[in-house]
């Protein structure tokens, strides 16, 4: 039966139908829903791993044991998983192993715009690239066939517009798959002697995959009514081209983006007057086409920055764009903000008040960077706050450093991000003894990606009770003696904790603990209100950037549909203008 399915759910459907039995992933927009949807199938064991490296290694182990396995991540997650990736390219697999990587052109929810296709080429692993949900199901299943036929892991490349678009699919049935493990030391022990023998096998495999690419229906050629232009494209770029041109020009669509069908490309190019490559982000197809000695138009017209759309195609091919009417008004931007009642707010206010430099990390608390708080100094990647803090503190204490030593520096990292890769940085702080204060903002969930469980929450992906890491014990175990917990709704306690830990002459950890205000089990207090006669319009309460407070006719006013009654604003008021809600 035909149904609408999100691209990510379609990948999960493909996993189900292919008989995949094991899924291990770390959440990351726009990849998260693949694993969430896979977990809903009884037949699939699915888990959140602490990070992408652990997830991929676990999926490899499952493949080795003889079950079809899967690991999903966002583009930057593949950087974390790159270490096992490059070597399982050598070992190959037992049962099929598929790795989904979701790029985010336009950076809807990411810190860079990296093009993960380079990983396919660099690691010598084939990569498939679906352009809609129906292809997401079909390509996922085909990926397992390729994986087992060619003895290789297979990358499945998604992007935001495929991952987060629903389109029509017709789901099929599941076929179970299992095979036995047999020891094969020369294949699976990658010490130099064995690896030297595996590398030529990998190169021969790529040759065989190029031959496969020439004939596989994953790569298609559509004829056009005019051969003036021929277009090579893939993924969403294909959709934009088709939307604008329909059947006007011949189109080669690469569903297998690596390795490429070289003869097919040469013959396609011979039959068109001008060859144009349309691809988002980097010159990947174009570079390869040029390597084949074929001239083409590509990045000279189609930017390597941001997403494309129909107008990109119109503009570059026809020098025209379609647009509607703008109205005569200045429309203020609406950036994302920390939610009303967000436990991070009180902590960030405390850090701003104490004038500290703040090494930030990846999560909802990255929003502490936006006005009016403007609390962060850096955001790089998962875990970089903790290790960056160590380097910053060590180097500024060196003789000859001119950075103001009196201005203290802290790291701020979430519970899930700390488990992902903050803990190793903390080990370094303890081991190499930097006088650093790490603040774990523990909201008891992986927030930004939409509430995923993690090793600190006591629940697993399937919603069952699980071992719960005790952060205090963990921090002490790595050698931090000063570990304390504060409630970020209590500004006085936060201020005291920050002041005392920064004054201490040894490494310390502050755990700022309160569950995310959006969690279903979190009970909100009644909304606060402002007594307009008491309000002196000093705007102190506006300094925390709460979306529930605004100034109306010169007085603070609380939006009672948003206010969760957290009371942080009331602690800032010097004139006692805030009233608690009734029936607390």
């Amino acid at each position, binding site marked *: 039966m035909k149904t609408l399915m999100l691209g990510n759910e379609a990948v999960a459907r493909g996993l189900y139908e292919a008989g995949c039995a094991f899924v291990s992933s770390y959440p990351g927009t726009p990849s998260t829903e693949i694993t969430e949807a896979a977990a809903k199938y009884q037949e699939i064991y699915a888990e959140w791993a602490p990070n992408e490296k652990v997830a991929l290694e676990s999926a490899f182990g499952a493949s080795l044991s003889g079950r079809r396995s899967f690991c999903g991540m966002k583009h930057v997650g593949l950087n974390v998983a790159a270490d096992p990736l490059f070597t399982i390219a050598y070992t190959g697999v037992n049962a099929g192993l598929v790795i989904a990587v979701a790029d985010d052109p336009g950076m809807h929810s990411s810190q860079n715009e990296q093009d993960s296709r380079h990983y396919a080429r660099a690691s010598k692993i084939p990569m498939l690239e679906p352009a809609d949900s129906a292809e997401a199901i079909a390509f996922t299943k085909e990926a397992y066939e390729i994986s087992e036929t060619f003895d290789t892991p297979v990358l499945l490349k998604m992007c935001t517009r495929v991952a987060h678009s629903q389109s029509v699919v017709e789901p099929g049935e599941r076929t179970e798959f299992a095979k036995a493990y047999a020891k094969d030391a020369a294949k699976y022990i990658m010490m130099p002697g064995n690896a030297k023998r595996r590398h030529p096998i990998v190169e021969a495999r790529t040759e065989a995959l190029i031959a496969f690419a020439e004939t596989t229906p994953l790569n298609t050629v559509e004829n056009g009514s005019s051969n003036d232009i021929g277009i090579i494209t893939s993924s969403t770029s294909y959709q934009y081209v088709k939307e604008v041109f329909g059947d006007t020009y011949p189109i080669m669509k690469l569903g297998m983006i690596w390795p490429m069908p070289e003869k097919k490309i040469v013959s396609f190019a011979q039959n068109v007057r001008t060859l144009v490559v349309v691809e988002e982000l980097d010159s990947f197809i174009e570079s390869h086409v040029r390597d084949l000695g074929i001239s083409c138009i590509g990045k000279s017209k189609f930017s390597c920055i941001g997403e494309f759309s129909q*107008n990109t195609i119109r503009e570059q091919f026809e020098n025209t764009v379609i647009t509607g009417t*703008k109205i005569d008004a200045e429309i203020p931007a609406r*950036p*994302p*903000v920390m939610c009303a009642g967000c436990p991070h707010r009180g902590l960030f206010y405390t850090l701003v008040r104490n004038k500290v430099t703040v090494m930030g990390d990846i999560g909802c608390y990255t929003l502490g960077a936006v006005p009016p708080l403007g609390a962060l100094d850096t955001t790089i990647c998962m875990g970089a706050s903790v290790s960056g803090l160590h380097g910053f503190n060590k180097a500024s204490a060196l003789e000859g450093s001119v950075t103001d030593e009196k201005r203290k520096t802290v790291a701020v990292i979430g519970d899930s991000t700390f488990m992902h890769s903050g803990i190793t940085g903390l080990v370094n702080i303890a081991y190499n003894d930097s006088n650093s204060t790490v603040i774990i903002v523990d909201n008891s969930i992986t927030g930004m990606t939409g509430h995923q469980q993690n090793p600190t929450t006591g629940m697993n992906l399937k919603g069952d009770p699980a071992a719960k890491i005790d952060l205090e014990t963990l921090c002490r175990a790595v050698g931090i003696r000063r570990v304390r917990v504060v409630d970020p709704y209590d500004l006085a306690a936060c201020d005291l904790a920050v002041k005392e830990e920064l004054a201490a002459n040894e490494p310390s950890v502050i755990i700022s603990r309160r569950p995310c205000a959006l969690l279903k089990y979190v009970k909100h207090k009644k909304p606060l209100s402002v007594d307009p006669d008491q309000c002196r319009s000093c705007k102190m309460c*506006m300094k925390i950037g709460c979306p529930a407070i605004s100034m109306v006719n010169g007085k603070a006013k609380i939006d009672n549909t948003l206010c969760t009654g957290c009371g942080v604003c009331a602690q800032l008021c010097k004139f006692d203008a805030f009233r608690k809600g009734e029936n607390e």
Partner: protein
Amino acid sequence: MMQTKNIMIVGVGGQGSLLASKLLGKLLLTGGYDIKVSEVHGMSQRGGSVVTYVRFGDKVYSPIIDRGEADFIVSFELLEAARYTEYLRPEGRIITNTQQINPMPVITGAASYPENLVQKMENAGLAVDAIDALSLAEEAGSAKAVNLVLLGRLSRYFDFTEEEWMKAIETSVPAKFLELNKKAFRLGAQS
């Protein structure tokens, strides 16, 4: 061949636009159309400006709607309707809630919320259905039913029967909120 129809649903993260697009998708599926619905997840959901694209026709390629292409812009918030007018095609129509939610630059005083937006849109020659969807939703029983009020209003411009809409509502909302949502839809349709 049928020209692809384009509906943009815009609003503030957390207002419930995902449910509206899900419901539309189910309705259109019963009509036998090819459909693409493009959503936004992740960071922009946190109180930011959010856009969902719903496209249907004989064959839909692109998952997104570009400037000058939307047949309808359904907006959960007035400023967001004004933000995306460029996406409307000349014969298109804006259906907007008149509710105003201040964005952070307005809250902090760095910018101001523009006045008379409905009038400004009309002065620019745009077709605008401006309704107080929040009040109608509250009348139906919950402020959260703004999405159904707006869909009700949108239903006036489609050939689907009320029965078909009701069926799509039944498969999209939890049973205990069904009557509330149906009422909100009807209030929107009659507004």
